[in-house]
């Protein structure tokens, strides 16, 4: 136990830097995924059929490709076409894109839970589509999507470890390097697991809080 604590004290500064990178990566990808997800879902609700088809196609294609392959495409293939992104930007973009389709589905679930009668009430007041979205559908639909959005965020936190494959020194990669150089696999991976939990458990509590809050409405 004493040996464990001594090792932990020695490893923690490195792992905490990794955790910091993991959180940055997760936060960045979360923002990208939400913005893109909103775009996909608004396209999906458009009156113009081609926009709906494009949205559907994007969701099906991105959802059908493993995240690690998408990251490799952005980090290793795009440079061949002259788009050379630094690892962090590629990670944020890749994870954000991959997760945007789950966010779109979260939003779709939330928006479709909005009572059609309220849409009619807005329509009868003379609201056109953009006003109806901004004043009625989004303010009611997005809160309804928040609990599932929280779940997705926890999954994103864990999947950010995939970015270790494109040289980003986030928590998993920082740990791997430590483990390889010290051979203390048990200590290192236990610490990594505990650090992921330390980040995700508060998120889970946040999701439960949101669920309670919106159940009351």
């Amino acid at each position, binding site marked *: 136990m004493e040996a464990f604590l001594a090792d932990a004290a020695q490893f923690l500064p490195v792992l905490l830097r990794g955790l910091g990178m993991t959180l940055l990566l997760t936060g960045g990808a979360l923002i990208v995924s939400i913005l893109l997800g909103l775009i996909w879902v608004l396209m999906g609700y458009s009156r113009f059929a081609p926009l709906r088809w494009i949205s559907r196609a994007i969701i099906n294609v991105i959802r059908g490709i493993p995240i690690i392959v998408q990251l490799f495409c952005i980090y290793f293939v795009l440079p061949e076409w002259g788009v050379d992104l630094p690892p962090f930007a590629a990670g944020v973009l890749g994870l954000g894109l991959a997760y945007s389709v789950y966010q779109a589905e979260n939003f779709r679930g939330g928006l479709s839970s909005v009572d059609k009668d309220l849409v*009619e*009430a807005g329509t*009868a007041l003379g609201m056109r589509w953009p006003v109806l979205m901004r*004043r009625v559908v989004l303010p*009611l639909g997005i809160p309804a999507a928040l609990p599932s959005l929280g779940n997705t965020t926890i999954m994103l936190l864990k999947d950010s470890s995939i970015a270790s494959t494109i040289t980003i020194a986030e928590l998993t990669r920082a740990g791997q390097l430590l483990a390889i150089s010290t051979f203390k696999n048990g200590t290192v991976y236990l610490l990594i697991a505990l650090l992921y939990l330390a980040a995700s458990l508060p998120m889970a509590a946040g999701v439960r809080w949101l669920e309670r809050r919106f159940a009351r409405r």
Partner: protein
Amino acid sequence: MIEVRNLQKSFGGRAVLKDVSLDVAAGEVACLIGPSGSGKSTILRCINGLERHDGGSIAVNGLPVTPQSLPAIRASVGMVFQRFNLFPHRTALQNVIEGPVHVLNQPVADAHARAMTLLAKVGMADHAGAYPRQLSGGQQQRVGIARALAMEPRAILLDEPTSALDPERVGEVLKVMRDLAEGGMTMIIVTHEIAFAREVADKIFFVDEGVIAEQGPAADLLSNPRAERTRLFLSRVRHPL
């Protein structure tokens, strides 16, 4: 003011409105009565374009109802719903100013002042800051009426405005509607409140199976129904046992 000619509407091959013609002049109160499923609500929903009609024509103030004219039509025709349909994330006051501010682009302060006048008119000024979930059905419906009035419509369509209310709450909503009628508001009301229709309606249309089976002045139609099915309907409504 509202002219409906040979209106037809089908839902998935089922003809709900077969041939409906009716006229409501400015300042008139018309009540549509008839069995459930006869097409009364569909007539209202075609007038403000919530449903697109399949045949015939509708004109409001001489303006034909078409997809292009709908913004103008909706600006001049208000609607009150059976289930109130208040925006649950906005207070009574916010519900009332929603249309004036976000559709008519009125300054918030002006809309606010007029909304308070309207809420006072329907007896809801004390509840201006309340959310719909904190209000009874009757209170919500009075806010719904104020919301429709806030657009300064030329006419209001009311779709069974008291059907979803607890019996002891019906009176307060009917009172607001009676005040509106006395104020000269043009109204088309789908209702099952026969006594109310007799009191405030200028005209009654009896709708049955997608056609206007009978129409006439309120007292006349209710006291001396000519069509057999009108007679049958009225006797069932008046003597449910």
